[in-house]
């Protein structure tokens, strides 16, 4: 059964496109990544799923509930971590967490205390006195304290230091092992690569690729890193060329024999040919207009 299923989900802001006929499927129990640059439609998708904005077309179900007619039921089973965290000024952290629990009609005191301790979040401080990182932690506790079936996380690690990011992902993986579904949008592609089993890439409001993270990387393109000088000229199939000192890096998709001939003509001290990382792949999809090579 799907945790999230959208069918031709569309949102226009007047004449401006938010998302356009977006089809997405996330199965229950998945750790799913959602990738795309600013303006691609990630936040519009998330805000539509949460009922903050109404779709202008199509439909979507979250945990089996229609996002329009069953909004309250689905929100009771979701934990949401927004990218931009804001709380009511003047409230203490413990009061914000209590308010969130009361709105869910759930006693989350024990879990809340446990999470605050793990994330080293001071509960007696006022939220408007907190650093952005600590506000983010308070928002994480709000999203997790009621043990939701589905976690929707929008750019979850912005503002967290590396140690806290590790602790946060440890908690997420524990929840995932306990059966929760995690849906995470991120600009940090390495985060998606390290943590997610599947991912979707969104471009101009449409899903242009959706597969297992390893499968997304299985293009016939290779990342080539060379130390030395190589006469690449205008060789077809070479793109995303970066030069730093005597180091040359480029993506190559084409005849491997030709690549070896080019390399043999250069003065090389070291080289490596690897599968491209997720960042390369996203770039690849964006340059290729969504058509995988």
């Amino acid at each position, binding site marked *: 059964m799907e945790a999230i299923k959208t069918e031709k989900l569309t949102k226009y802001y007047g004449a401006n496109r938010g998302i356009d006929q977006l089809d997405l499927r996330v199965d229950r129990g998945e750790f799913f990544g959602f990738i795309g640059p600013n303006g691609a439609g990630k936040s519009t998708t998330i805000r539509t799923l949460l009922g903050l904005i109404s779709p202008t077309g199509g439909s979507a179900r979250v945990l089996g509930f229609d996002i329009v007619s069953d909004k309250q039921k689905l929100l009771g089973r979701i934990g949401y971590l927004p990218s931009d965290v804001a709380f009511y000024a003047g409230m203490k952290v413990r009061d914000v967490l209590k308010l969130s629990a009361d709105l869910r009609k759930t006693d989350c005191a024990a879990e809340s205390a446990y999470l605050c301790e793990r994330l080293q979040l001071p509960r007696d401080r006022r939220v408007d006195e907190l650093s952005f990182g600590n506000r983010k932690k308070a928002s994480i506790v*709000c999203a997790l304290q009621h043990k939701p079936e589905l976690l929707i996380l929008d750019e979850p690690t912005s503002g967290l230091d590396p140690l806290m990011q590790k602790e946060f992902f440890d908690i997420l993986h524990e929840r995932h092992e306990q059966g929760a579904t995690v849906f995470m949008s991120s600009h940090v592609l390495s985060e998606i690569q390290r943590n997610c089993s599947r991912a979707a890439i969104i471009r101009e409001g449409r899903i242009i690729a959706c597969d297992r993270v390893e499968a997304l990387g299985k293009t016939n393109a290779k990342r080539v890193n060379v130390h030395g000088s190589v006469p690449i000229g205008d060789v077809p199939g070479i793109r995303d060329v970066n030069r730093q000192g005597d180091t040359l890096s480029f993506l190559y998709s084409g005849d491997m024999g030709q690549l070896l001939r080019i390399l043999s003509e250069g003065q090389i001290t070291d080289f490596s040919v690897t599968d491209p990382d997720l960042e390369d792949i996203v770039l690849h999809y964006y340059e290729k207009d969504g058509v995988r090579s």
Partner: protein
Amino acid sequence: MTIVKHELKQGVKAFAIWTFAIGFLLAVSIVLFPEMKEQMAQAGNMFASMGSFTAAFGMDRLDFSVYKGYYAVECANVLGMGGAFFSSLIAVGILSKEERDKTAEFLLTHPVSRVRILNEKLSSLVIRVLLMNLLIFAMSLGMTELIGEQIFWKEIILLHLAFTLMQLELTGICFGISAFMTRGSLGVGLGLAAIMYFLNIISNLADSVSFLKYVTPFGYCEGGDIVNDGLDAIKILIGLTFGALGIAAAYGKYTRKDIRA
């Protein structure tokens, strides 16, 4: 009730400041009466010769040298203006502040329907308006006893009832406005209260614009009219209809509103 309690807590400072300010000014006005009683008799003669000025402020049908007349103009003006500003300000920001302060995302991603949010936010406004008026009324009775004047029960109850209804009307209208705003709504609330006040003054000046009394809630709060004739049910009914339309507009808009990031 979670949102009601939350709103009351969030608004407790503003409530205390406004109640204290209105109560203090009203108390000062009441305490001054014994000293001003005689001067007021002379002032009454002066006002009588000032033509439309006295009519503009509804002072042409009252005797200032008696406590009832003095209270109906001086004290009621304090409660009228103060109460109008207070109710407009708290109502006009109650929905829009969530978007302005970006807390809407926090509130609306909890399993709470927008209708429940509206119900509870509106309840919190009504509670604050009623409580403020009750406290002011009690203080007013106490101060009247203190200066040794007789409490004119019928008139004082009708006066305070009219001002409470006026504030509830403004609350309803501003609640509706709040649903359409995303930021910077406080100026609109203050502006609306001020416009309504001046519309009433203008309506007192000329017969050709006397219909404005049916537009502004200050129209049914005229001290002279209330003391002499009681409440005007038609004006109140029209006013409360405006308030109800504001509330209906809030429900119509907010339940369908896209919340901006």
